[in-house]
């Protein structure tokens, strides 16, 4: 075991590099799966919460809606309002004690992160939907679109763009917060680092490596998402279309002449 700090870091890396690597892999795995499913849950809950209900709707629909809406609100408030670490213990041990369900550790990990992210995302999605100018919804209604069509083709694509930064935020939070899952025995980056550190009592060195790895993971993800966002915005310029063949050379694009049907093959 080398005596200097950097020497020990290199020693740990060469000996336990794979432990760190596998831990990081597990962390990313849980964070990504949790974020993706969390987003799906969040979209579902958020969209249901923004369904308009008017006094003219039938009583059954209104009652049904208020029950569903109460349950969804309860879900959001409970999972947002309690620590994920406590939820992990509660769900993992509670499910076997109360319902005799023996979740696998991994399933529990995915489940807990997803449902947690879902609770946060629900509010984010709701905000994203509300952020779209109601005029566009009226525009869609005016050409005969139903509420569902309006959501799918007009509102959600724009809401998704607006909440992309928040999705990125959640991914980064999840990458960091998976470390609380070590409490139910998931061997992710934090758990792996603790193991390495404990072997030679090199806590400072081991966790220096861990810090760097966490940072690389989160920073890379945030950059990738930024590129993704820019791509969603599309180009800032557009091509003018024309049927004038001379203009093609100046960079204009061609479209079929509506008066001359032979042209569009």
């Amino acid at each position: 075991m080398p005596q200097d700090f950097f020497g020990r870091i290199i020693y740990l890396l060469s000996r336990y590099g794979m432990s760190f690597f596998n831990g990081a892999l597990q962390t990313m795995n849980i964070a990504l799966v949790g974020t993706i499913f969390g987003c799906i849950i969040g979209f579902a809950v958020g969209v249901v919460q923004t369904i308009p209900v008017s006094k003219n709707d039938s009583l059954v629909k209104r009652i049904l809606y208020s029950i569903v809406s109460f349950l969804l609100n309860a879900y959001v408030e409970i999972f947002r309002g309690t620590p994920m670490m406590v939820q992990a213990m509660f769900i993992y041990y509670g499910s076997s004690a109360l319902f005799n369900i023996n979740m696998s550790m991994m399933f529990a990990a995915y489940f807990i992160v997803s449902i947690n992210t879902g609770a946060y995302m629900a509010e984010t999605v709701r905000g994203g939907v509300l952020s779209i100018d109601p005029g566009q919804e009226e525009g869609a209604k005016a050409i005969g679109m139903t509420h569902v069509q309006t959501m799918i083709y007009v509102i959600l694509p724009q809401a998704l763009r607006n909440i992309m930064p928040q999705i990125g935020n959640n991914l980064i939070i999840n990458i960091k917060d998976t470390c609380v899952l070590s409490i139910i025995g998931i061997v992710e980056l934090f758990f792996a680092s603790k193991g390495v550190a404990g072997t030679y009592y090199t806590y400072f060195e081991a966790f220096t490596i861990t810090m760097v790895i966490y940072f690389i993971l989160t920073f890379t993800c945030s950059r990738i998402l930024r590129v993704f966002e820019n791509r969603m915005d599309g180009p800032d310029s557009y091509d003018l279309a024309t049927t004038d063949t001379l203009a093609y050379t100046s960079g204009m694009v061609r479209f079929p002449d509506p008066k001359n049907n032979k042209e569009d093959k």
Partner: protein
Amino acid sequence: MENRDVLLKISHLSKTFGKNAVLKDIDFTVKKGDVTCIIGASGSGKSTLLRCINLLETPTTGSILFKDRDIMDKNGDPAAYRAQVGMVFQNFNLFNNMNVIENCTVGQTKVLKKSAEEARKKALYYLEKVGMLPYINAKPRQLSGGQKQRVAIARALSMEPVLLLFDEPTSALDPQMVGEVLDVMKRLAKEGLTMIIVTHEMAFARDVSSHVVFMADGVIEEEGSVSEIFYNPKSFVTKEFLSRFMRE
């Protein structure tokens, strides 16, 4: 003047927001091919009336018959009705996530269930009509107000509506853009499209209307032909409202 020419018949329509009565007992009829301009001061209920016609607002009482069918019928399908009645808004309300051509095809493919090719052909036809053909690849945020409004008109026309509603289509535009939008609307009027137009452009209303409705304080103060309303108004309120304009 036969009954079958009647496209839209509104009777005893009223709309209240809380305690505030915005429309009181409105009656009026639109025949096929009519260009009806609704004029009046701001806050007189013009826009609310138009929004009631498209069911964007639910009328409090009264009935609206479209082709002799009550559109407020509980078993009716407001979306199917709206697909036949186009609307152009003051603030354009284009879909910002789509480019110009997509704005004009999405309703055709998703609501009218037309094929993509057919929808595109129709959209190109109407975009040419409003002079926006070169801009089919542009996003709404890249267009000027007048261009956006012309696209919005093309979007409404692409659905080939039986009736087209305009809610102050030029109020958010500068004078030059107002001209380009009004020109398009004049052409549509000449082609015989049935339109109801809420507007503050008096000269335009005088030139294109076949029927003028003057509203004040939530009621139809006076209605009639252009010469009746603009040159021989009977009501004192109408006279006063138009006097400022007629002097110019």
